[in-house]
């Protein structure tokens, strides 16, 4: 299994990284907080840590720590527009339930 980006997500990430002017890739993760137990984190990364698992998708390097990977394996990250809002969306097959807003989830 792996973590993948849709083409539109990869385009965006590359654009944002170029705009930022530095960074080695995109770091995905989960942490325990939020109303439903787990929350996603999505950050720029300036370094690859020794324990990181890395994936490459449409030219974007995705970094993830092994613990988070167990919750995220198989996730596809997409970039979508909803009305006036736009942003990244986790399509995570491991999710059993998420809170109404979708910012946190349980596995």
């Amino acid at each position, binding site marked *: 299994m792996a973590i993948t980006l849709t083409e539109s997500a990869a385009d*965006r990430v590359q654009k944002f990284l170029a705009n930022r002017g530095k960074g080695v890739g995109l770091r995905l993760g989960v942490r325990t907080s*939020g109303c439903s137990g787990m929350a996603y984190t999505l950050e*720029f990364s300036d370094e690859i840590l020794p324990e990181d698992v890395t994936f490459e998708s449409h030219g974007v390097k995705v970094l993830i720590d092994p613990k988070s990977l167990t919750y995220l394996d198989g996730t596809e990250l997409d970039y979508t527009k909803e009305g006036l809002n*736009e*942003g*990244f*969306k986790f399509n995570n097959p491991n999710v059993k339930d998420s809170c109404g807003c*979708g*910012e946190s989830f349980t596995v």
Partner: protein
Amino acid sequence: MALLQISEPGKSAVPHQHRLAVGIDLGTTNSLVATVRSGMSVVLHDEEGHALLPSVVHYLASGVDVGHAAQAQQSRDPQNTIVSVKRFMGRGVHDIADIGHYPYRFVDAPGMLQLSTVAGIKNPVEISAEILKTLKARAEKSLGGELTGAVITVPAYFDDAQRQATKDAAQLAGLNVLRLLNEPTAAAVAYGLDNASEGVFVIYDLGGGTFDVSILRLSKGVFEVLATNGDSALGGDDFDRRIFCWMLEKAQVPPVGPEDTRLLLTKAREAKEQLTDHAETRITCVLSTGEVIDQTLDSATFNELTQHLVNKTLTPTRKALRDAGISIEDVQGVVMVGGSTRMPQIQHAVAEFFKREPLTNLDPDKVVALGAAIQANVLAGNKNENELLLLDVIPLSLGLETMGGLTEKVIPRNSTIPVARAQDFTTFKDGQTAMSIHVVQGERELVSDCRSLARFELRGIPPMAAGAARIRVAFQVDADGLLSVSAREQTCGVEAHVVVKPSYGLSDDAIANMLQSSFSHAEEDKLARALREAQVEAERLLEAIRAALEQDGDALLEATERAELESHMQALHNAISGTDPQAITASMEALNHASETFAGRRMDASIKQALTGHKLDEIKV
């Protein structure tokens, strides 16, 4: 499912605690809102895809329209459609020079003027709040949550009252103002000048109806406004009007009604925009009279038509440079702001003037909002500490005087504001019951080499042995640069404090005066100059007549004639000490008139004298 943005390393927000922050460019003609998404500053659009929100508010008997809908009502219902409300912010009726030109029903009120509309009396703060509310709603829809705060931009020359009014409007709109930011500084931030370079930058801002030029100095991440200048009645609209006049002239149609005027002005604006990247454009429309307008305008003609408008922007630019004491060679970069700077002739003129290509790669309509959004993102805490923009810092250390005239620094220079520091001091003599606190600013060790900001006394210290009292002196600088200093004796609790403005040791009034003097005193200066010129001219005339009277007065004038002449001289003398140049000119004319006979006789006498004793053939004609 919520949509996520990419955060800086370690800055992922806890769910439901996103720090959504926006930058708002509250403009005279148009307003915008922008935010930073995944590290990138972007302008937010409305449902129709418009980025610009016309700063127009239309009041109805019930309800209110803002933006394009309001703009559409402008010519139909001018009294209730408020445009350019920014010009009225923090202003009274007496402050508005051209108040007769507005179609509104003004109501004078202490502090700020008000406008009577169909929805009742409204003040500029309430009207601006309507614009801000619309932008806030747009932002919350676009970001999917409530805003943490906003940075709102204001012109660099805005004074305290205008800044406060802007803050009040934001509060009324339900926005938390993280900070007011100067528009030119925001533009510089959008171009990343704050983290790239040091030096002097010029911000050339030609909007729809106003022109502003600002000279900024950037050093160690701090922007300092060195000078501002401009023309509050010059903008893209004037260029439209030139095309409009040219069309009427060319078509040889009689003056048109308001509806056709609006139609033609719209066509003129479209033509102007076309000429930005086309060599010529065709203008066609049908007037309400049935007359058909079909003309072709090429860029050469357009340039010719508007050459004087372009030149009009260079005069304030020159003045600003002179005020800042900066020469063109010192300028590190020129930033173009405002939609009107898209016109090629403007870009050429600016490039030629500064001998360098101006920065134009960001959309000039959006650059201020983009910069404000970047600043808002930092202030909302979405960036790492070490990347904090040092936009607002204390330029010089703040401290107080200790025994022997030495400076004790309490807040070191380059501390980011807001900041608060306290330090304990004690008494110097046995039984000392009062302490004088002298607040100073500067880097030098001796107080005499620093700038004195304020002095105050703490009295009522209980008599104690020297060194026993504990007096805590606290310095606090708020986000707007306001310093307050308090001193408190810890054992008995006596307290004293003072509020000072540390920025330059100048009061806001003085700073505002300096910045705005060229704007608001232009008319006064002109008048003063006219008066001085008239006075000089009148003195010269009086001096000449006095000398003539001395020489020939007794010989050529009857006593009554002389008395009359002297009374006119006295009248002029009185007028000179007055302040009305026209009165002086009138008195001068009267005196000139009264002295005609005398002058004539003097002429005759001197000719007679010249001719006496000469033969006719000796005189060359």
